[in-house]
Structure formats: structure tokens, C-alpha cells
């Protein structure tokens, strides 16, 4: 039996029943050991359950994930689920939109995650007067050569942190459509592919905040996850204060070191792509996403890209949980973060105080789990 599993706190006795947003993401426990079995006549597990181990070696993935978690934990207090979902998106080759009120370490978390990867990093502060050429780059005339030369913009990096993405108007947002989906820029008829990996980590304040624009639906659809960053608990906030008080400003960001290279990340992603998916689970994903298009509380349902996002995310999550196949648990866990920014509530549902997460929860309850 492999020892890289550890007890899922959700399954520990007397653990509170978690919601889909608060479910811990630790790797699931292996079969119970004989000592843990009660007085049953036949102990479950034993030698037979040793056969139930992943067919692919996920030890490298687990090791790298642990290293990233450890590096993030040097600075970030709490936000464990956030870090795990960022890892999931990283392995699923997806972009992440972080939403939260100011001051909850959205930018810091994204910046630190970028620091754990030894890949080119770029940061963009979106402002209302930003132009598309400020993001993508522009052609400049070189008098010495007598010709125009493309000068790449800050988007040409492997990890791009776009801070306050909804402070820029729709014109600038549109500049990101091609690069986020196709990982390339087309300028003056010339295609400029971006280096792999390419991940956009964007932060934004809620739309109710002053000076923000609503992101276009087409752009929201290009984000794999939309993660809501909440306030820390009292214990976590005390830990933050203690850390700053003791260290006169907290742990410096330079303490976080790169632990995963671009080539290693590519290999891990290939491994995630080979995860096993039972056909009934594909149907389950299609039904969940299909329900968003038939729900009376929604006027805009999720696209097929959402189905792909749910599938790829579930594969990465299953790998992080130590499995080489996905389960309905993975899909249900990721459904809110995959669907919440891709669906639009009807005005009357919005007036009733409904949220996209409520609708996703209803949909999850309306579709039978395949087993």
C-alpha cells in the first residue's frame, strides 16, 4: 500500500458536514487497515484491497504539489482550499479569476504561486486608460532598419498576473480573448505563439465596488475557475497578526522559492490528461451543464467549454487526491467554481436575492449521481 495518502478530514469522526465550497481537498484515505475494522467476522481491506491502487505513478505529482503547498504556506495563512484549487487549475492548464474584497490576499496568493514556478512572470495592473497595445505589444518603426518591428507586450510571459482586471473597460478586455484561448497573438497578420505554460491569474473586486466594469461573458468563459476569496477566520487572522508582529512585516516574499520548472509542469499536465474517466461520468458532466441551459432561473447557461473545464478540472483534482480516475465527488466539488461565472441569472431571480452558487446547488441536487 502506498503511503502518500493521508486521512481526509471530511471523513474523520465527528467532522462537520462540509459544503461543496468548504470540502477539504486532501488526498483520500486508503482502505481501512485491519486494526481499524470493528468486530466484524471478515475484515474488509487486507491483502485484497492492496490491488486498489492507482495504475499510474502519481508520486511525482504528489511531491511537487506538496512542495508548492509548503512554499505557499511560508507566507499565506489559511486559504487552504484556495491554494488547492489554484494547484488544480495549474495542473488542468486553465486560467483563474480570483474575486474578493480588497485586502484578502488575492494578489499575494497569485504572486506567490507564480514564484513557486521557475517560469517567466509578468504583472499587469489594469487601469481605466489601459489600451490593448499596452497589453499585447505594438509595432514600432526602426529607423536603422527602415522597417517596423513588433515589440511584445507584458502578456508574453508564462504566468501573467492581471491585477484588478475589471478596472479596464471592455475594449482592453477584448485584447485578451485570443491570447487566453489560443495562446497566441496575431499582430499585423503575423502570429506570435506564447511560450508554454501560459497561465493568467487575474484578480478583481466584486462588481458592486466603485470603479469596476463587468467582464464580457466571452472573457469570463475563458477562465477555468472563478474562486471567491473570503475573509480569514479569527484564528487565521490572529496568526497573520502574530506573524507580522514577530517578523516586523511578515515573511518576505523572497522566502518563496521556485520548486517546479516548466518542463516538470508539462509532464505533470500530460499525466493529468491521461486520467481515466468512466463514460457515465462524462454523461453526468453533460447533464449538469445541460441543466444550466434549461434552468428557469437562468437566462444564460454554460457553454460546452464549461463541460471541458469541468472534465479537465476533475482530472487534476483526482490526481491531487491520489486517484487516477475521477469520481462524481470531484465533479460536484468543482461545479460551483467552474459554473458560477459562466451562468447569468434572470432579473427576477437576481431580485429575489439568488446567487449563481444557489442555482448550481439546485442543479447538483436535481441530477442523479451515476453509480
Amino acid at each position, binding site marked *: 500500500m502506498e503511503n502518500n495518502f493521508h486521512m481526509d478530514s*471530511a*471523513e*474523520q*469522526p*465527528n*467532522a462537520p*458536514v*462540509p459544503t461543496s465550497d468548504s470540502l477539504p481537498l486532501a488526498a*483520500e*484515505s*486508503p*482502505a*481501512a487497515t485491519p486494526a*481499524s*475494522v*470493528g*468486530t*466484524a*467476522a*471478515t475484515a*474488509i*481491506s487486507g491483502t*485484497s*484491497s492492496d*490491488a*486498489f491502487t492507482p*495504475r499510474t505513478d502519481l508520486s511525482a505529482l504528489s511531491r511537487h504539489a506538496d512542495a508548492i503547498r509548503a512554499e505557499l504556506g511560508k507566507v499565506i495563512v489559511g486559504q487552504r482550499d484556495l491554494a488547492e484549487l489554484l494547484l488544480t487549475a495549474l495542473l488542468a492548464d486553465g486560467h483563474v479569476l480570483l474575486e474578493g474584497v480588497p485586502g484578502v490576499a488575492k494578489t499575494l496568493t497569485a504572486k506567490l504561486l507564480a514564484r513557486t514556478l521557475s517560469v517567466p512572470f509578468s504583472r499587469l495592473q489594469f487601469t481605466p486608460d489601459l489600451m490593448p497595445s499596452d497589453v499585447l505589444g505594438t509595432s514600432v518603426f526602426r529607423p536603422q532598419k527602415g522597417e517596423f518591428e513588433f515589440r511584445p507586450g507584458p502578456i508574453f510571459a508564462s504566468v501573467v498576473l492581471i491585477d484588478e482586471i475589471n478596472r479596464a473597460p471592455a475594449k482592453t478586455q477584448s485584447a485578451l480573448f485570443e491570447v487566453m484561448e489560443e495562446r497566441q497573438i496575431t499582430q499585423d497578420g503575423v502570429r506570435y505563439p506564447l511560450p508554454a505554460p501560459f497561465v493568467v491569474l487575474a484578480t478583481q473586486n466584486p462588481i458592486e465596488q466603485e470603479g469596476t466594469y463587468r467582464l464580457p461573458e466571452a472573457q469570463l468563459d475563458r477562465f477555468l475557475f472563478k474562486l471567491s476569496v473570503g475573509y480569514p477566520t479569527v484564528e487565521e487572522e490572529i496568526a497573520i497578526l502574530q506573524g507580522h508582529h514577530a517578523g516586523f512585516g511578515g515573511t518576505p516574499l523572497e522566502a518563496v522559492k521556485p520548486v517546479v520548472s516548466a518542463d516538470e509542469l508539462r509532464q505533470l499536465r500530460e499525466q493529468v490528461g491521461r486520467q*481515466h474517466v*468512466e463514460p457515465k*461520468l462524462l454523461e453526468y458532466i453533460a*447533464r449538469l451543464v*445541460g*441543466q444550466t441551459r*434549461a*434552468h*428557469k*432561473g437562468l437566462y444564460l447557461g454554460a457553454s460546452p467549454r464549461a463541460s471541458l473545464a469541468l472534465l479537465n478540472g476533475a482530472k487534476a483534482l483526482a490526481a491531487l487526491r491520489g*486517484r*487516477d*480516475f*475521477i*469520481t*462524481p*465527488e470531484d465533479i*460536484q466539488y468543482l461545479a460551483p467554481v467552474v459554473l458560477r461565472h459562466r451562468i447569468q441569472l*434572470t432579473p*427576477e431571480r437576481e431580485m*429575489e436575492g439568488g446567487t449563481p452558487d444557489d442555482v448550481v446547488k439546485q442543479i*447538483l*441536487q*436535481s*441530477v*442523479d*449521481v*451515476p*453509480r
Partner: protein
Amino acid sequence: MPQPCLLRRSCPAPLPGLLGLALLLAAGGGYAQGPAAPRSPVLPPAPDSLAVSAAPRYVRLRADTAPAGTLRQPAAARLAELRRQPEFQYVEPEPSSASDSLWSRFWQELWRRIAGLFSGETYETRGRYVVYALFAAAFGYVLLRLLRLDVTGLLGRRGRALPLPYEALTEDIRGIDFATELARAEQAGNYRLALRLGYLQTLRHLTDRNLIQWQPDKTNHDYLRELAGTRLAPDFRALTRQFEYVWYGELPLAAGQYPELREQQLSFIGQVSSRLLATS
């Protein structure tokens, strides 16, 4: 001889020029007639109408005894001619029905009937409020349909999911004949299906003992959480792991492995049935 106007304010506008001329003539006349006694330039005061000596004067008018004039009538032919002139026709005459098309007559009739709803004796009574209510309801319904609003939520009802374009496969574990289905799967050598049926059988027994609340939308880990704290939890976790690897993971299950796994399922079902270990 004109009197010179000494007070400029009391003179009319053309008087200043005339005043100069009058003074000139008066000076010339004096020289022609010889020297005369100088007259005071101050005019005598006007009679005071409020004085006691000023008595009111009345004017007596004579009654008009002249005979009344006769009304002249234009000639009948002239009157008819004037009436024919368009300048004197202040109301447009309605076109003759003979020139109306069938379509225009239809609309005329429709509007006449609609106007009739708001006139007549019924309209004058309280019955008109019924007509108002009917029209308001019809207008509201059309508005809701056009805006595609759903106000059923205001009455306590919530929107139901529209039918999906594919058939929803539901499987109620209470309706499965496990003995028959298991025997069939084992006989066919489909041990993967047999292990699944055995796991569903354990869920059925847990449901019958009210140890879990069976719902089709729950995952296996939901049931694990419901069993948390009981002595059944570790064994059920192991069975769940077996089921997930064989069913969701499609791990090959050899014929030699199945009997032991089935034995573990039967043992767990025995524990649940005996209720010896149901709760800690």
C-alpha cells in the same frame, strides 16, 4: 391767443416747439399794438370739484323709441350657394359607405364595437369596473408574455426545470431485485457489475436501517459523512473504495478476486442487519 405753458410737465409732447412760436408771436403782437398791461403768467386755479360750492350735475337721457330693424335674409339660392362652398363647411362630411373598402369597414365596425363597450347604460353603472379589470388583466398578461417574466415565484411556486433533451436514467435501489441481478451478473462473469450491485445492496440495507438518507443526488462520500462516528464507517469506507476503483476507475476485476470482495460485502450487510454495530 395761445397761453404759454409754463409747466413743462403739464405740456404735451409737441408743445415745446409751439411754446417757442407762441412766445415769439406774443412778443411781436405787443410791439404792433403798443404797450399793454403785463399779464400774470400764473393761470387761475381750476374749479375744485370737491369744494362745497361744486354741485353735482345730472344728465337726463331720452328713451329710444325708434322701431326695431328688420332682419335681412339672403336669397335662398344665394344661401344654398354659400353652403356649397368648402370655405363655409367646418365639419368634414363622412365619406359615403359605398366608397369604403371591406377592410376599412371591418375596422370601422371593430372600433365602433370597442367604443360601444365604454358607452351605453352598462358603462354608466358599476359594471364598467368589470370591463376595466378585464382590460387591465389582458394588458398585464400581454406585457408579462412580451417581457417573458415569470411571477409564479410571488405565489410561492418556484420554477421547475424544463425537460432535458435526453432521458434521465434513474435507478431506485429499493426497486432492484438484488438476488436475481447478482446471480445473473455472476453467471455472465461480469464481476464489475456484480460488485456494483453488491455495493448498491449495502446502501439499500443502510437506508432500510435509517443509517443513511438515500437520495439519488448524493455521492458515496455524502453517505460516508452520514456514517461518520459509527463503527460501521471504516468498513463502509473500504467498501466504497473498492467500488470506486472497480466501477469509476474500471479496474480489471479477476474472477479470483471477486469472491473475497463479495464476502466482505455480505459481512458488512450482516453487521447492518444485526444492528450490533449500528451506532457507537
